């Protein structure tokens, strides 16, 4: 069950190799974070799940069914999709954006809009924003709408393509918190693409670090990767040498203070 990448590869007609021999399983209700620099094939891999890209070798299975055997349009409607910034339909009001997939699958417009307002609340937006157009919202609000839209048809699987990449760090943090809270309630099977290792560690149950050409540098839980980076590439990518990654404790007034590599306080060690 869940999503399985079975030895998938993608070579484009011009000979560019995006991904080679990638295998990985995302159990149901878990989040897989694909992280890497541009050209690492992370987006290609995610797009194979809803057939925006079709693998040239191997197969992708959702609940043990090969996606290539499913109807493309129906498959996509059954999967929630959170695009990068700028992926909302600019000519549709926010409620209609959220109601997109239910309307496509035949839900009456009125009922779909009603449900959409509820979803706006679920992602922490004032339902009154529903009657605005996307360009009238801030970047952070727009991405909340994108999350609500992806959830509208209550899909089991959610694909997220650098969803919070274009917003400032404070807003990004808020969006990540919101997603974690939603995921705790809803338990979707999520494939998240990001170039931000901190985001991958925060949101992913399992993290795959990719090198150029879709080669897996390391797969593991955030803890495993942090504790035991597979090689110099991973060590460099996760920033093992960065001051904020090498913490130590110092005793101050009888308490254990955690400080980073530069000696700046990060927090207090409890227990």
């Amino acid at each position, binding site marked *: 069950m869940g999503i399985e990448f079975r030895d998938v590869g993608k070579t484009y007609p011009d000979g560019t190799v995006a991904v080679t021999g990638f295998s990985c399983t995302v159990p149901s209700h878990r989040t897989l974070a694909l992280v890497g620099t541009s050209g690492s094939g992370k987006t290609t891999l995610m797009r194979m799940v809803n057939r925006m890209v079709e693998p040239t070798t191997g197969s992708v299975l959702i609940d043990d069914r090969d996606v290539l055997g499913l109807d493309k*349009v129906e498959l*996509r409607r059954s999967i929630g999709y959170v695009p990068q910034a700028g992926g909302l*339909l*600019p*000519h549709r009001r926010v409620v209609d954006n959220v109601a997109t997939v239910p309307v496509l699958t035949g839900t009456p417009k009125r009922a779909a809009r009603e449900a959409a307002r509820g979803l706006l609340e679920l992602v922490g937006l004032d339902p009154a924003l529903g009657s605005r*157009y996307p*360009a009238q919202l801030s970047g952070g609000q727009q991405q909340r709408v994108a999350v609500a839209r992806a959830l509208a048809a209550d899909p089991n699987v959610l694909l997220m393509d650098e969803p919070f990449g274009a917003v400032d760090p404070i807003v990004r943090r808020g969006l990540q918190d919101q997603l974690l809270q939603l995921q705790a309630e809803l338990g979707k099977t999520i494939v998240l693409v990001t170039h931000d290792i901190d985001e991958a560690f925060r949101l992913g149950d399992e993290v795959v670090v990719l090198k150029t050409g879709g080669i897996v540098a390391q797969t593991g839980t955030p803890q495993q990767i942090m504790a035991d980076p597979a090689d110099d590439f991973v060590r460099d990518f996760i920033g093992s040498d960065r001051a904020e990654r090498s913490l130590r404790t110092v005793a101050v007034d009888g308490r254990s203070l955690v400080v980073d590599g530069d000696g700046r306080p990060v927090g207090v060690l409890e227990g």
Partner: protein
Amino acid sequence: MTWVQANRDYVLDMLLQHVRLSVPAILISVLVAVLLGRIAWRWPRAGTVVLGTASLLYSVPALPLLIVIPVLLGIPLRSGLTLVVALAVYGTALLAGTAADAFRSVDERVREAAEAMGYSRAGLFWRVDLPLAVPVLLSGVRVITVSTVSLVTIGALVGIPSLGNLLTDGFQRDIRAEIVTGVVATMLLAVALDGLLVATGRLVTPWRGNVATGVTT
């Protein structure tokens, strides 16, 4: 003014003929140009040939074209259809490139997200690409509307009645008021149709007006 009052029915009749010739020509131009523009957008290599041919057609002089079309299509020389086809050729030639630009103006991120959400190919065209192409497309439609309305007058030279008759007749009989009426009526018709297009454009792209005055918090 006395000339207009005395010939009111004649002027109105010619105005109606003018509308009957120009509006179908504009509509056909838009349909064909959107089709060609879509092809050019979808298959850029073939598109270069299509758009090149289209703009070449625009350089064909009008009078020979009005002779050639009846021969090719087997319709009478003085039929309004001849003029409508000729004007549609010019309109399409002028608009096809803009139509291709209009499709290119649609944000690729929006298209991709719509496709990934499960829009069918037809749905993507009708509900995403076409509405989002409207602003650029409309700018081109406005140009061909004005040019078509003014071109209709040349039909008078081969005996297809329109406001152009006021010009030919006025010149032949040296009635200055008739010429002025013909020019002014043609211009007013062009301005009126243009206004109609602008209003329609606002109506079908409500998201744009709102953006300008929008709150961005």
